[in-house]
């Protein structure tokens, strides 16, 4: 576990899990219970109702939570600084390498930051339609 990305991922779970639970719980609670009852009464079991009704309806919330958790972990600095070694550095810590004894290489830092923003930016562009859909969901009679 020590000095692996996998170990670092486990530590990130610790900080993003409350965030994910808090958001996703709200989305599950927003599903009118009558819709789940209707599926049960129609003859489907508990697990079938969970996977066919609750999960799809909470989908936008799960997507939103996933995106936020990713950004949260991606931007995290302190855990990586403390736990990661020189050859297992996430980008936030890696950017520090440009602050050297001979001076601060602002150009490289700026370039590094641009590169580190790129995946988050792309993901946000892709996921925004799910986020918007999530906001408009929730009409009981819909």
């Amino acid at each position: 576990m020590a000095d692996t990305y996998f170990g670092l991922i486990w530590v990130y779970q610790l900080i993003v899990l409350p965030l994910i639970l808090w958001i996703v719980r709200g989305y599950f609670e927003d599903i009118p219970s009558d819709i789940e009852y209707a599926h049960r009464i129609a003859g489907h079991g508990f697990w079938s109702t969970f996977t066919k009704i609750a999960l799809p309806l909470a989908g936008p919330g799960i997507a939103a939570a996933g995106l936020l958790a990713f950004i949260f972990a991606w931007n995290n600095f302190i855990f990586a600084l403390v736990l990661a070694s020189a050859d297992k550095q996430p980008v936030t810590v890696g950017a520090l390498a440009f602050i050297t004894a001979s001076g601060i290489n602002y150009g490289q830092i700026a370039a590094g930051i641009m590169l580190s923003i790129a995946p988050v930016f792309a993901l946000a562009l892709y996921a925004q339609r799910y986020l918007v859909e999530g906001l408009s969901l929730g009409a009981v009679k819909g």
Partner: protein
Amino acid sequence: MSLRLSHVRKCFKDDVVLDDVCFDVPAGKTLVLFGPSGAGKTVLLRLIAGVIAPDAGEIRIADRDMAGVEPEDRGIGMAFQNFALFPHLSAMENIASPLTAQRKDKGAIQSGVQKLARLLKIDHVLGHKPKELSNGQKQRTALARALAGAPRVLLLDDPLRNVDAKLRFEMRLELPRLIKDQNATVIYVTQDYKEAMAFGDEIAVINDGQIQQIGTPEDIYLSPANTDIAQLFGDPVINLLDVMPRMGPAGPYAIVSDQHVALSDSHSRVVDKPCVLGLRPEALHFVDERTPGAIPVTVETETPLNEKTVTLAMTARGREIMLSRPAGTPGPKSGPAHIGINEAAALLFDRESKELIPPNGINAAGKVA
């Protein structure tokens, strides 16, 4: 399949929502649950459906105790008041839901859904998602979903509440036939007394979590168990007049505006006790002033409804009385007039307990008073 509830009780925290509910619906019959909102009707349906469990009492379907039986194993179809359609599935998939649960093959599901959809006139919108359907179409989709699995017990929770007046009128004509075709035992919840009278083989009037009266629509209209029920059934609403019955040489009588209204002989036991006289508007009619017992009134307003004319009149003591008569029959539009009472249709209630004092000595619950 028959449905029997005995002594069912349900509380939410300290709040008793249902207490000692007992009724028995024979297979293939329709029971209408009628009561104001908050009376516990929806909770009762949920108990029968099995999505919540009773705190006490027993629910039996086809003579089998339902305690611990999951909702999916009860063989029930239910239409919710707010439709509760699956928003991410098309109307077709919504209706097919009970059939997929029964693991029918694709062709059978397809033809089953098509048949119901044609019957309910929604076959042209089967590909639409619920949010693309009108309220009436949603209502029919929800109804089709409840019927699709050919349930033994059908629970309809005020299915016509959220639809417009025209569709409600149409459905009021169509629904009884649809329900009869299903050959299921039906519990129909409504707040509309006309729907209750039209659909029910029997009506259970529920208020404050208790069943107040169970009977055929005629029973409930002609001998309501108390003044509350008398007021709920009937349009225009029943006239209730405070009276104190007296004993005369010809038997007990009540005094309305200085005129004697004869009561049934068995009412002699409430002589000199405060009572309420219930007079249906159609039990009153305009008469000539020379008629014995004619009550002088002043006609205030007249409202023509479709098939009847309703008149509001005021007695000399300032009590308001409503009369109704078939449309087209003559009657005074304003000013002084006289009314006669069809004494056989008069109902007498105890003023304190509000309960009916039955003319034959047997009260609505079937117990000798």
